[in-house]
């Protein structure tokens, strides 16, 4: 019997979903949808009576104070009776097989009442005014549902059962590669979503020919997952012949010779003081923290899934990186998250979007909600992040999620032992996420939504929380020898990696399934979320299972690590496939690539000012620009204070202004802190990829320094997101960025400890006229800096503190307006790209840190997006304080950006140039002399007093000509918060 329970709110005023539908319909231009009412429905199947269902509804599903319920057999007319004037009934429900966390919770709750339904599914129900079919359809798919994961039913639900599939019957499929030409191999790769090149398929064919056969489907799939761009640095690790502005370079392995090499050099220089613990070999990078703990950090992207299903894509992106930390060494506790999104501009007209593209505003709302619901449920504070808006990300947004973890000293090394059990723990395996690893390696297109539904996953955060509690307890008791997460490629990657040298035998029929019908291959490559694989000594198995049971987590031994160097896959005792580990991990043919980089010509600075332009008007425009404007609407949705360790938060000061770096305690009750800073100079990508990367790294470090991080303890992460790297020009920009990473890490003695690349960020579509288009994203490096402060009590925030204090700028400014916020708001075109002078930046970092350490700095803010004047305005907003600055006092390198030579041009250039590596410091008047001495100890640092904190409520800007402009701080705050 299939029952339906509908839960209605008693007070319609509390129906947020109804308000959202009405507002969304108006935005979509759907006339007549001025009222709505909504309900939550539950489909419940099983041998249950009406009384059972009513008991369930009253005790579990409905709130006795605020809600009422209706119970009926599915399909009963009472369930779709029109509400007054609202005849259209629209249902949105997860597709069969898609994770439905609420339904899983309801199913578990039934057990507490002694009820045993066989299946539960959740439904959202909407009663709407009479709408024509096209409008109802548009409303459903543009606003309420996602094609990748939902079914929409208008009118009565047709369901009479929720029953799933039947058990799979063993079979083997041989994939015939022998005799196929390259075109056929390419077609085979495309049709099976393998993302393998013809050359790679040749290697596979040759390997199996030496065995006298063709590969089985499960073997070919395992190879495709392992060789995917997602799972190995296929492009970055390639030999490359590069021709750049400084001549030709020949790399045998680009990544090893740039990023890895810089880390090696830094570690060599540090010698016995090397504080790196485990870099570039585990799921995250590990460094020393205090006497008892190491800390680790990882940032991942989840771009393609988020483009199709923003909520699920971002949530599982975060879930995945949390598992990376959990799966580091012998398990680390996740203690902080960060997120960075790159999307199209919020004001993009809907008509300008290619077909199949989700509007940037809806996309951003979706990814924010995904991070919110996953991160908040996990109980990990999301404390750092950024949003970048650029038309280049339409159709291919970037979604970065990062996690910091902490672990006991001496637990970073893990090694699988021969005879260990292969244990899978956590969520059950379903068809979700099949081909995620290979999907992320192919380009997105306007049809991706319909083609790749299976590769989009929905997360179940509480399962991951339970899994985390289980792993950390098992780790405390030292009950496993190694651990890794099931991410891209599922078990095939996780077990494959852990068994890379020893080999393993796996009984795939033992993998716990969400529902019947999965084949051995599907169980093997499914990317179902919330699973970890552990290597457990047989002697520890009983204790481990007990902890799993106590925490309500399913842990199943599915095989053994053998030491035979072969990966043997079985189904009910029969061999389903067998692979040589050496071939699987070392057999991928490497192809020498060619890359080329020719810098674009520098455009001369051209001012485009109007008669009524002024410093004040420009400042208000820049503060309101999407990249700079307040992200409070996002930050407040994230629980950034759970765990009780957040000390410098993303919004701070009496005026709740923006932070630079943010700080968490590493351990409750102890004072040593972890600092997070991010840097992203994507707008420079198309102009100068080297400076884009270098500038991002400097920005990330500067964010950490501003808050008081020790410059000698900064670890870096790289996340490369690039377009089509099969093009030599595109690959050329990637090489330039890698060179920058190397040079910066060495210059700042800040080692890269981990990283990730996401290539092939290309969106392809065909327009109404039948023309095919392809668009690559701008070359984008996200730099993350993880710093440390000895005592969080001595952290420094950017909010202005006290009238009478003086303001200094540290670091030289140059007229470098290309890609600046001033350019984005239309005041200027062209100009030079901001250049990183690494040696000078290093001196500035050291000088600022020394002044902070000496207790001479009351507030500190780095100058990044929007330059000096924006920085001062943000400090005033955060401190709810007034200030005066004099532009003539700013140390400014003479340059050619004078344009038509007007005084306003000169003032704007000083105020808004985005030269990297500069800070504004607030210094108490009584220690101003000491600050001057301290900051000048390193004679190379250009700095100057440029103003003071004053009483009142105005920001006063004195131009180079000596005239003063004032703007109320309240107006700055209003502009920054998006008000007029």
């Amino acid at each position, binding site marked *: 019997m299939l029952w339906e329970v509908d839960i209605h709110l008693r007070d319609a005023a509390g129906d947020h*979903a109804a308000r959202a539908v009405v507002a969304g319909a108006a935005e979509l231009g759907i006339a007549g949808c001025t009222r709505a009412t909504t309900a939550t429905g539950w489909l419940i199947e099983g041998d249950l009576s009406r009384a059972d269902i009513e008991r369930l509804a009253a005790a579990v599903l409905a709130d006795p104070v605020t809600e009422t319920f209706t119970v009926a057999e599915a399909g009963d007319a009472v369930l779709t009776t029109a509400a007054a004037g609202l005849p259209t009934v629209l249902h949105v429900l997860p597709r069969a097989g898609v994770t439905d966390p609420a339904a899983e919770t*309801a199913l578990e709750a039934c057990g507490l009442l002694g009820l045993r339904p066989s299946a539960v599914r959740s439904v959202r129900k909407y009663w709407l005014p009479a709408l024509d079919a096209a409008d109802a359809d548009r409303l459903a798919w543009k606003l309420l549902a996602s094609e990748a994961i939902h079914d929409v039913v208008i009118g009565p639900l047709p369901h009479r059962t929720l029953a799933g599939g039947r058990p799979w019957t063993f079979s083997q499929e041989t994939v015939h590669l022998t005799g196929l030409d390259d075109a056929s191999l390419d077609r085979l790769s495309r049709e099976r979503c393998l993302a393998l090149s013809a050359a790679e398929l040749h290697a596979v064919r040759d390997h199996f020919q030496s065995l006298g056969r063709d590969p089985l489907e499960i073997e070919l799939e395992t190879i495709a997952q392992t060789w995917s761009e997602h799972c190995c640095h296929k492009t970055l690790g390639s030999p490359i012949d590069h021709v750049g502005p400084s001549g030709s370079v020949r790399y045998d392995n680009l990544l090893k010779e740039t990023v890895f090499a810089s880390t090696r050099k830094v570690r060599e220089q540090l010698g016995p003081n090397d504080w790196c613990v485990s870099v570039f070999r585990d799921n995250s990078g590990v460094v020393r923290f205090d006497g008892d703990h190491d800390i680790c950090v990882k940032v991942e992207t989840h771009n393609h899934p988020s483009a199709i299903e923003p909520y699920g894509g971002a949530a599982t992106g975060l879930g995945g990186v949390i598992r990376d930390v959990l799966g580091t060494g012998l398990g680390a506790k996740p203690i902080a998250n960060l997120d960075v999104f790159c999307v199209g501009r919020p004001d993009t007209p809907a008509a300008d979007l290619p077909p199949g593209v989700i509007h940037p505003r809806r996309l951003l709302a979706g990814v924010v909600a995904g991070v919110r619901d996953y991160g908040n449920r996990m109980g990990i504070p999301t404390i750092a992040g950024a949003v970048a808006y650029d038309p280049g990300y339409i159709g291919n947004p970037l979604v970065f999620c990062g996690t910091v973890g902490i672990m006991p000293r001496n637990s970073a090394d893990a090694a699988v032992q021969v005879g260990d059990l292969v244990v899978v723990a956590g969520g059950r395996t379903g068809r979700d996420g099949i081909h995620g690893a290979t999907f992320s390696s192919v380009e997105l297109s306007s049809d991706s939504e319909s083609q790749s539904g299976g590769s989009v996953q929905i997360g179940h955060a*509480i399962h991951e929380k339970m899994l985390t509690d289980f792993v950390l307890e098992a780790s405390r008791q030292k009950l496993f020898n190694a651990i890794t997460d099931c991410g891209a490629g599922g078990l095939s990657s996780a077990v494959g990696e852990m068994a890379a040298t020893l080999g393993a035998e796996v009984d795939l029929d033992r993998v716990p399934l969400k529902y019947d019908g999965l084949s051995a291959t599907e169980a093997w490559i499914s990317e179902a979320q919330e699973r970890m694989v552990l290597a457990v000594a047989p002697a520890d198995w009983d204790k481990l299972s007990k902890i799993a049971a106590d925490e*309500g987590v399913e842990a199943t031994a599915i095989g053994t690590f053998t030491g035979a160097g072969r990966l043997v896959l079985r189904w009910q005792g029969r061999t389903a496939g067998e692979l040589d580990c050496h071939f699987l991990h070392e057999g991928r043919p490497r192809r020498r690539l060619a890359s080329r980089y020719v810098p674009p010509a520098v455009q001369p600075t051209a001012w485009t000012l109007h008669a009524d332009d002024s410093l004040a008007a420009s400042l208000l425009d820049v503060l309101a620009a999407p990249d700079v404007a307040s992200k409070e609407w996002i930050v407040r949705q994230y629980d950034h204070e759970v765990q009780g*360790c957040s000390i410098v938060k993303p919004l*701070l000061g009496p005026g709740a202004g923006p932070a630079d770096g943010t700080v968490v305690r590493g351990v409750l009750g102890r004072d040593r802190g972890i600092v997070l800073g991010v840097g992203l100079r994507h707008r420079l990508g198309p102009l100068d990829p080297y400076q884009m990367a270098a500038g991002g790294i400097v920005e990330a470090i500067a964010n950490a320094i501003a808050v008081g991080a020790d410059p000698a303890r900064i670890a870096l992460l790289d996340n490369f997101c690039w377009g089509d790297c099969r093009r030599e020009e595109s690959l050329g920009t990637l090489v330039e960025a890698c060179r920058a990473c190397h040079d910066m890490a060495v210059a700042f003695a800040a080692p890269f400890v981990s990283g990730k690349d996401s290539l092939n960020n290309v969106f392809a579509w065909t327009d109404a006229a039948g023309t095919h288009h392809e668009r690559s994203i701008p070359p984008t490096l996200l730099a993350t800096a993880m710093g440390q402060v000895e005592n969080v009590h001595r952290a420094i925030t950017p909010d202005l503190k006290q009238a009478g204090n003086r303001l200094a700028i540290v670091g030289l400014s140059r007229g470098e307006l290309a890609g600046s916020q001033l350019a984005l708001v239309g005041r200027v075109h062209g100009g030079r790209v901001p250049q990183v002078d690494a040696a000078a930046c290093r001196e500035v970092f050291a000088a600022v840190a020394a002044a902070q350490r000496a207790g001479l700095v009351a507030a500190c803010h780095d100058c990044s997006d929007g330059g000096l004047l924006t920085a001062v305005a943000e400090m005033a907003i955060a401190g709810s304080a007034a200030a005066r600055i004099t532009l003539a006092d700013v140390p400014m390198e003479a340059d050619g950006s004078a344009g038509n030579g007007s005084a306003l041009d000169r003032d704007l250039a000083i105020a808004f140039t985005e030269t990297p590596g500069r800070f504004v410091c607030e210094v108490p008047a009584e220690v101003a002399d000491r600050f001057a001495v301290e900051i000048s100890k390193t004679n190379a640092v250009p700095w100057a007093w440029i103003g003071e904190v004053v009483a009142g409520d105005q920001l006063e800007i004195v131009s180079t000509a000596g005239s003063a402009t004032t703007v109320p701080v309240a107006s700055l705050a209003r502009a920054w918060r998006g008000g007029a």
Partner: protein
Amino acid sequence: MLSPRAMILRAPGTNCDHETAHAFERAGAIARRVHVHALAQKPSLADDFQILCIPGGFSYGDDIASGRIFALELKSRLADSLAKFRDRGGLILGICNGFQVLLQTGLLLADPTSGAARASLAHNTSGMFLDRWVHLRAVPGRCVFLQGMDRFELPVAHGEGRFVTRSPEDFAAFDAAGQLVLRYAADASGTSSNPNGAMGDVAGVCDETGHILGLMPHPERFIDAVQHPAWNGRLDPAAAGAGFPFFTNAVRAVS
């Protein structure tokens, strides 16, 4: 004298248990995190404790409603031992999700005859999860946890925190009985800091004895001055935060 013992009762999805245990320990208690499954298997575990705290989080995901399943679990498996704990004078504190649980188990504000809930915590008026700091005013009355407290700030972080009663009469009765002990107050500019549309600005309520308190704000997130978003340069970093007295009051009351 022996230190009082505080049980931090957790369920799948509880996520404020560590910092809540830490706050009790700082206040002088011995705090133990106990899984509800373990307590259900051995209810006598509770006999060793004087304080029971249900901390914040998303118990069982809060996918159906906040605290619903945790409360059902307590009602169906631990009703007697909770009643016993209360009747022998044990203190019970429910923070955020724990407050939601306490209302639904009937330990707070339930109809004395039917046991039915007379109050609930509904979705915020904004429809959104919200993390921000609020101004509060306590009228402690008998409430053990709030003794000596008046006006202070704490953070809130929830999506379902709008206090509502079954009827206006219920609200008036709770008010008259002095159970609506913690209210959102105006900030310095006179703006209300009610973050969720709660009736009567109610942020926390206690039972008739003053031994049971449920509140939406998080006192365990403000036991140190440096947890305040504007501490830097304004508060002594070594000072305690305004949430600390919740824990010291409780510890003192059972010592």
